[in-house]
């Protein structure tokens, strides 16, 4: 693996949801003690069901939510203690693409204004003229026409809007982009267009991605490494192949077996692992392994202590019953 660009070290993001002044304190542990790192030019896929904390983690990384515990290092420096110029560099180089392209573009700004705004804030290029030219160039890069610059977001389809938000992110020459379910609101035939665009941009510009999604097959396609989250915890991590072809954690196995396969013969032949029930609430989560309530191989041990992440040659898993020996 290349040198780490971003390191997440035992990060916790908690939300206080206590109602009323004198009630018992209630804490939602959305992200609880997660560690991983992402190298230069690498794509790290983060998967899990809704409510597992994957989006919260992505937002914590760009400081939309404050960290409750642990540290985030960007280029080896703690992002909480960055000085003014370093902070500016961090906010420029780390960008985010959101899930819903209908909500993430200001309907009252033209496409040109949308793309130029971040450049103005970060004082990239000197004149408005240059920024306009750059915006047109970026539109071409993401597969739109330069003369779309004077149009408004409502004149575009979902896929085209997502291209506009990608152009806006690229305006700042970022090094690291957090893609928070960038394709889940799009049609299947458009999803592949956006995924391939993201891949092309990466190979041209050497950008790292954190790709947050619940669609395992797309994550497997775009990612170098994959982390699987469950109830705020990272339960498995490995290369895309390791996680996909030989999943170790029972949750990952269940998740994979639930992915619908577009092939009737394979779909009928394969054995499904049925997960009973749903994700428990992260409000006062159970002691021990977070997955034990739904796990087919849970034992008494799992209820007592939370399994630590163990490393089996780059393939990490947090489970007492997993690992090559099992």
């Amino acid at each position: 693996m290349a040198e780490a660009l971003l390191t997440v070290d035992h990060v916790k993001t908690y939300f206080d949801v206590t109602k009323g002044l004198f009630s018992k304190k209630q804490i939602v542990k959305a992200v609880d003690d997660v560690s991983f790192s992402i190298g230069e030019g690498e794509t790290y896929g983060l998967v899990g069901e809704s409510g597992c904390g994957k989006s919260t983690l992505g937002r914590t990384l760009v400081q939309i939510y404050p960290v409750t515990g642990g540290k985030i290092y960007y280029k080896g420096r703690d992002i909480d203690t960055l000085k003014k110029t370093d902070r500016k560099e961090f906010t420029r180089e780390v960008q985010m693409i959101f899930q819903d392209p209908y909500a993430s573009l200001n309907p009252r700004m033209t496409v040109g204004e949308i793309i130029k705004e971040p450049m103005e804030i970060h004082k990239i290029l000197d004149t408005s003229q240059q920024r306009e030219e750059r915006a047109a160039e970026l539109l071409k890069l993401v597969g739109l026409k330069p003369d779309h610059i004077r149009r408004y977001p409502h004149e575009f389809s979902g896929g085209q809007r997502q291209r506009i938000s990608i152009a806006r992110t690229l305006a700042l020459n970022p090094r690291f982009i957090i893609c928070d379910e960038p394709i889940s609101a799009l049609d299947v035939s458009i999803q592949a267009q956006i995924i391939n665009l993201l891949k092309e941009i990466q190979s041209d510009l050497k950008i790292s991605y954190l790709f947050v999604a619940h669609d395992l097959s797309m994550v497997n396609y775009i990612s170098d490494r994959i982390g699987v989250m469950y109830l705020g915890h990272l339960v498995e991590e490995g290369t895309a192949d390791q996680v996909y072809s030989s999943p170790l954690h029972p949750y990952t196995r269940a998740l994979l077996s639930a992915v619908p396969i577009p092939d009737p013969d394979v779909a009928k032949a394969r054995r499904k692992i049925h997960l009973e029930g749903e994700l428990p609430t992260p409000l006062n989560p159970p002691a021990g392994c977070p997955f034990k309530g739904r796990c087919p191989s849970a034992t008494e041990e799992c209820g007592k202590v939370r399994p630590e992440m163990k490393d089996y040659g780059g393939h990490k898993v947090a489970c007492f019953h997993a690992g090559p020996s099992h």
Partner: protein
Amino acid sequence: MALLDVKHLTVDFNTDQGVVHAVRDISFSVGESEAVGIVGESGSGKSVTMYSVMGLLAANGGIREGSVVFGGKEITEKAYPSRKAYQAEMSKIRGNEMSMIFQDPMTFLNPVVRIGKQITEVIKNHNKVSDAQAKEQAVALMGQVGIPSPHERFGQYPHEFSGGMRQRIIIAMALANSPRLIIADEPTTALDVTIQAQVLDLIKDMKEKMNSSVIMITHDLGVVASLCDRIIIMYGGKIVEAGDAREIFYQPRHPYTMGLLKCVHNPEKKDKLTPIPGSPPDLLKPPAGCPFVDRCSQAMRICKLRMPEAETYSETHTCSCWLEEAGKRKGENHG
């Protein structure tokens, strides 16, 4: 005889921008206890087709032409003397012989009415039963669709249920009167994969138990692969290809179907994703020819001018594409 027979259905919507031709002359049928998938992207007309079958079109929309025959009976408005008579007939059919599972359970359920009441309402609307009997049936249904401790949950409100559980409630309501046809409109798009698998299995089980027919509307080929016997591919308000599951997945004939199959990632195969370029046509001004022409890599001059006729390849497999015609002519010339 087919349970549902749709012939030359054409649906228009009047909007501020003009008339949207959402569904243009489509015909298909669904047999008894058959599962049919209607696949297409947003704006392809798949949902509008089923809404017009159910008589649930918005006020600005209407069936301009065509017929819908359900269980041997014509159920389009033109077959009834008045709008009132039509609506009275449709409310007898809906929720009883034909029911629908919607995409977003939260917008379908009334947030201020207890779950139990919403289910018993469906039962009481179509059957003469006492309150106690209706409740008994509702609780049994909740148990059948996998709601734990149905007795306690009977009196709860929708917000006390999770997304997957709400979808189970919707399914319970759809099944309440053992319908002959269940129409599921993207029933799992709002759900997580693990919950999606649970809900799909539930629909499959219930279909087998009640011997009902199912129409599954979706944009996800993966969802129909395991569930449906036959698949209809819609694009730009037209049916471009139809066939049984194996024909569609293993011998697709229409370039759109082939493109669709190439842009979903099949982890078993590890192929590179080949997206379909461009975006769907604007149905305010639908193209005269094939709706897919602007995105088709093999488009010819005729494709822009005229819509190809559906060609039949087997008892189940039909496809509307000029390429097939061209291929045949070439064969004749050379042969």
